[in-house]
């Protein structure tokens, strides 16, 4: 149940972050192709090397600690994502407020 809830939250957070960052992604992809490439490479390196080996070492932890660690990490990530989303929404809200249509 808890795991399912966390997965739901993660899915929601992922969708929110993706949607909010769509304009920035487009700007980056079109204006800074090289930088985009570097960022993608960085992401790939992390995903290919860092993430699996981290997972490998984490899997060595004792079972209870490992479960607790997952909860802990999930909580941190969720919290960070929530704060990020919150700040992004505030930023967008401020920008909209400053736009005068008349």
């Amino acid at each position, binding site marked *: 149940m808890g795991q399912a809830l966390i997965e739901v939250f*993660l899915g929601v*957070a*992922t969708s929110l*972050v*993706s949607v909010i*960052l*769509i304009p*920035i*992604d487009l700007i*980056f*992809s079109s204006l800074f*192709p090289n*930088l*985009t*490439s570097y*960022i*993608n490479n*960085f*992401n790939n390196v*992390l*995903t*290919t*090397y860092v*993430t*699996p*080996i*981290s*997972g*490998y070492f*984490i*899997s*060595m*932890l*004792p*079972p*209870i*600690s*490992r*479960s*607790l*660690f*997952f*909860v*802990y*990490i*999930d*909580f*941190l*990530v969720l*919290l*960070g*994502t929530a704060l*990020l989303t919150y700040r992004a929404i*505030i930023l967008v809200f401020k920008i909209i407020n400053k736009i005068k249509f008349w």
Partner: protein
Amino acid sequence: MSFINEFFKSVFRTLGRILAYALIGFIIFLFAQKYVKANDEYWLSIPNYNGNSYSDYVNNFPYTFNENALGSTCTSISNCTGLQSTSIRLTYVGSDILKTYMYDLLVQFDLEYIMLGSTLVFNEQGITCSFRYSDEIIPCGARIIYEQVQPYNTYFDKYVVHVQINITNVSPSINRSGIAIHIPQLSGLSNTNALVRYTYTINDPIFRQNTKDNTDVITGNANANAQNIINAQNENTQNIISSQSYLNGQLIDNNNSNTQNIIDNQNSNTQDTIDAINNANIKCDDYNFVFNNSSNNTTFGRFDSSGNISSSINFKITDYIRLSENDYILSKNYNVANALYFCTYDYYKTLINCYNFNNLDSYTLNNENASFVRINFRVNSGDTTNFSGQYCYPYQERTNDILTDTSLPSNLNLPSVNFSNPISSLFLLPITFIQSLSSTCSSYSVPFLGGSFSFPCINLGNYLGTTLWGIIDLFITFGMIYSVARLFRKVYLSFTSLNEKVVNEFYGSGGSDD
């Protein structure tokens, strides 16, 4: 509180050290194990040192264990009595094979000139297997566990047999030793024109040749007579035969500068001829040739890098070209030939088929539609010409006629459109990370080693014991609970202050006046 803090800090520090030392030790253990323990991957066959049963060739086979069984009476394809034999040689590169190993090999024979409708089975003698190191030859068990029996309806067909060999308790000091499987006879071929053209193991890394995978397994050859056949990657052996066309003996289109040095190479110097062949970049297992024999009818043949030679009716056994793994040898009686035409496999097959139907006269060697490279040479009577050539592994698929399309620039780069979302993927890295975490013990394949090396799943509980592991588990758990509790408190305080900030942001520091 500070006492608890210090306590957990020291606990985590100690645990970290233990884990680090354990990890280092484990890595050392893994590497040591990798180099001490024999690995199946170090076995491979160097096939194709076999094939037909020309006695002169077979008798030179370094691992002929049962020469009596090799008594084929085939001296040419026309008078083959049906007794065929073949051998497979394997090379082991390693240092320790103390254990008993069973190896399954799928052995494939490429057959040529099979009597249509005939079947092919091994006789009851089965196969024998021997292992050789230094000067000793040790028998090893071998048995056929499957063989394909089918009628053959084409002149070119394959015959597959599943062989299992068993090697027991061989000296650990062996390095670069060889194993040979000898298949004494093929029966069911009485009075037929069956010829084993190729033999190779299907499930072998050999078929990954020309890839880098080969470089880490092929390191040696057990044949003391063959010194220069190592690491034959064959990357440069583009077949360029088809780029040449002759009309009445004249080269009419020479687009390939690489072959210039072998065209019309009027050699009186043997070494020049050797160089010419070596520089020809002809795929080594496809030396399809046609003799322009000045005294007899034109004959044609085919030989490969291991010395197999096939076809040719008017081809006396004493006249053939024999190739050992590093030597191309012209027989001393070969002086009647004054030119050697290397032609494509397709053209060769055409000639063969025409010959079989007694229709060879309709084809001429200088057919403008046929493509071949001609090397002229002169061999004095009594000479034995040694051709030092590169060794090549046989190809399962024939690619003789592959030509490189030079009309496209080599640096042609098609524009690629990249639709990516770099920023969001960057922000979502933590989520990607936690989604990839496994709740069970997992192994880790090192990516930059191509997944060939992997750290196994380590369950420290098995090494430390359940009780100790449980205690450690509890300690870590309490430590984490403590940390998380502190984090919650911090978050609570942050949210409290954030709430005040939000109120101030929206309504001003003095609150709402409405």
